[in-house]
């Protein structure tokens, strides 16, 4: 990562703000805008602090940027955006997009996205990305002017290719399966985790009821009163502690979610490969059939069934001049076809090579990130248990003084 942007520039998404405006249909809407701050990293020796540039962007602009990157670099596993709507929520967490906790987590997710793009060896050099970070006005128009939407493959075409391709590279087929498995297992995990969090919340909070009863009970007891009262206090502490614990866990869930969405990006690269391969196979097939047609016309033998053959049988053969003309056209087409095939082959091979390089890079990143996430989850659990031990040790002391 020698020359990536992240090393030259500090990027943060520092604030989020609610805005109201008018949308495309001239209806009033509320949305959140995010402040992107950038600052060039000067070398230590100069001792200067360069000024901070900033501009506001909303989520839809991030989406536009990502779509542009997806189309322009189909061989790259493009980092995902944080989720559009709150998913996998457990009941105490709000599913509302305007909820401050959700906005905060999204802010962090957007910053993470920008940093990932900025540290990617290929993506960080993109001009559109750079303008996204630095050019306040007219960025949207600029993106649209690149005409990237035209280059986008239709979904239908991609689906068709997936079913009909005959010889895709085995590695990509395996990768696609892996992407499917990863997506399915992470979404299952997130769902269960949300349910577990819900239940854990219940256990902790009910203990809070002890606090009130103990307090009321202690009023009528002489000797037991103090013990009861302080035990009750510790129960309140216990019940309150779950809020922080679960909030920390949300960050862990977000880390997993990123890779859930990454799985989709992996699949996109595989689809592109299938599309290219299918294109190639179709072109080769077309070339072969044209060559055959040419041969048939030249030698007069009909080897394959064709409508032309049938009609000529029914309505009589064509004149030699007509045949010559046809052969000429076909020969031109064959030549074109062979050149196209050659370049498609080259394209295909290049794609496979560069895609696979990025995939290897991605795999390493994924293993590293997930391992760290799992470790931090374990650390969280240990800290939760330590807190539990402390509270119950205190409660035990109070109980034994009852």
């Amino acid at each position, binding site marked *: 990562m020698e020359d990536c942007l992240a090393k030259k520039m500090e990027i943060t998404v520092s604030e989020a703000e609610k805005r109201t405006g008018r949308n495309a249909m001239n209806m009033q809407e509320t949305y959140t805008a995010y402040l992107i701050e950038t600052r060039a990293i000067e070398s230590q020796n100069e001792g200067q602090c360069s000024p901070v540039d900033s501009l506001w962007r909303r989520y839809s602009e991030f989406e536009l940027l990502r779509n542009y990157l997806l189309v322009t670099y189909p061989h790259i596993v493009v980092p995902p955006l944080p989720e559009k709507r709150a998913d996998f929520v457990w009941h105490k967490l709000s599913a509302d997009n305007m909820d401050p906790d959700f906005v905060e987590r999204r802010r962090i997710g957007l910053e993470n996205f920008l940093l990932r793009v900025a540290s990617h060896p290929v993506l960080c050099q993109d001009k559109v990305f750079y303008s996204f970070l630095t050019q306040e006005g007219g960025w949207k128009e600029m993106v649209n002017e690149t005409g990237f939407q035209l280059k986008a493959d239709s979904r239908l075409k991609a689906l068709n290719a997936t079913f009909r391709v005959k010889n895709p590279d085995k590695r990509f087929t395996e990768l696609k399966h*892996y992407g499917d*498995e*990863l997506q399915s*297992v*992470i979404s*299952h*995990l997130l769902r*269960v*985790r949300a*349910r*577990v969090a*819900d*239940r*854990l919340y*219940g*256990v902790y909070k*009910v*203990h809070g*009821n*002890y606090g009130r*009863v103990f307090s*009321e*009970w202690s*009023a*009528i007891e002489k*000797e*037991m009163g103090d*013990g009861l009262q302080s*035990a009750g206090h510790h129960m309140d502490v216990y019940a309150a502690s779950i809020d922080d614990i679960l909030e920390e866990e949300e960050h862990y869930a977000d880390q997993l979610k990123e890779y859930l969405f990454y799985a989709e990006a992996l699949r996109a690269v595989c689809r592109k490969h299938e599309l290219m391969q299918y294109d190639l196979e179709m072109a080769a097939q077309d070339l072969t059939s044209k060559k055959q047609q040419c041969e048939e016309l030249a030698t007069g033998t009909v080897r394959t069934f064709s409508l032309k053959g049938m009609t000529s049988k029914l309505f009589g053969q064509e004149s030699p001049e007509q045949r010559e003309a046809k052969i000429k056209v076909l020969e031109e087409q064959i030549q074109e076809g062979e050149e196209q095939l050659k370049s498609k082959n080259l394209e295909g091979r290049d794609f496979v090579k560069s895609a696979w390089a990025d995939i290897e890079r991605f*795999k390493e990143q994924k*293993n590293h990130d*997930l*391992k760290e996430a*799992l*470790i931090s*989850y*374990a650390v969280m*659990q240990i800290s939760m*248990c*330590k807190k*539990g*031990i402390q509270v*119950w*040790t205190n*409660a*035990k002391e109070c*109980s*034994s003084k*009852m």
Partner: protein
Amino acid sequence: QDPSLAEANSFSPSMPISPSSMINQYKFEDESELKDLFITVDDPESHITAIETFITYRVVTKTSRGEFDSCEYEVRRRYQDFLWLKSKLEEAHPTLIIPPLPEKFVMKGMVERFSDEFIETRRKALHKFLNRIADHPTLTFNEDFKIFLTAQAWELSSHKKQGPGLLSRMGQTVRAVASSVRGGVKNRPEMFTEMNDYVEIFSHKINVLDKIAHRIYKEEREYFNEMKEYGPIHTLWSASEEDIADSLKGVASCIDKCCKATEKRMAGLSENLLPIIHEYVLYSEILMGVLKRRDQIQSELDSKVDALANKKADKDLFSEEIGKLEDKVECANNALKADWDRWKQNMQYDMRSAFTSVADNNLRYYEE
């Protein structure tokens, strides 16, 4: 010595006669050093007859007391027999706090009448019941109690048929209801009003505690159910991975360990805390009953005093009756007070150990 005083003591023949020694009788003794009666309740067996199906429990008694002919007894008793014992004790000692019996039926929950869980819970409660009586300084010497522990089945049936019949017991109940309808007693000593207030609040709080404890158990169970699914997902995931497969498997096994620890915690709750809280819920009802009976005894005295003040005839006869009643009231009051103090000490001890053990359980859970 006044023979009429002996009549007043007809409740329990083995009690000494003079008032002062009666009061001393109720002083709290340190029984743990002097324990000479050991009782266990176990081995439930079901019996099927043409009319009904019922369960009997084996009651084993080991003792070094002289009043017992042998030092070991083994009998079988059914729930009805325990009910009989309890009502005899209440009759004999209306203002002593008789320990609670497990309920006849369980209203809430789908516990079938003869499910293993139900039988085991009942067995433990019956065991507790007999031991509490054995530890009580007065009740432990009750004759009916002795017969309960030692008599063979046919002996017990024939003994049950003696004694005040159903009608007289009904009479007592009617009077009790009547006196409670009349509202509070006029000359109730301050101490007992305080007790009444205490019991009201205590009863409310212990019922709330009961609900909370059950709710916690339920939440822990739901948590456990979800956790059971959580671990295996990580194992499933590890199958698709190479580098991080080991980390994932590690997480899976840790989560499974947490599951086991949760199970232990739940078991601790249901064995230690829930039964004790439940017992004290029943105790609070018993306390209210005891206080009412005391009131009732006092109001008998009061109404006789009023009658005397109004009639002025047969003064001597009345004043003798009143004298008896006054003694009765004083006995009742003292009995209750002493027993009350004892009960409170026990309650304190029980609660202390129950909550301490909950705390211990939780500590163990978090340490694991």
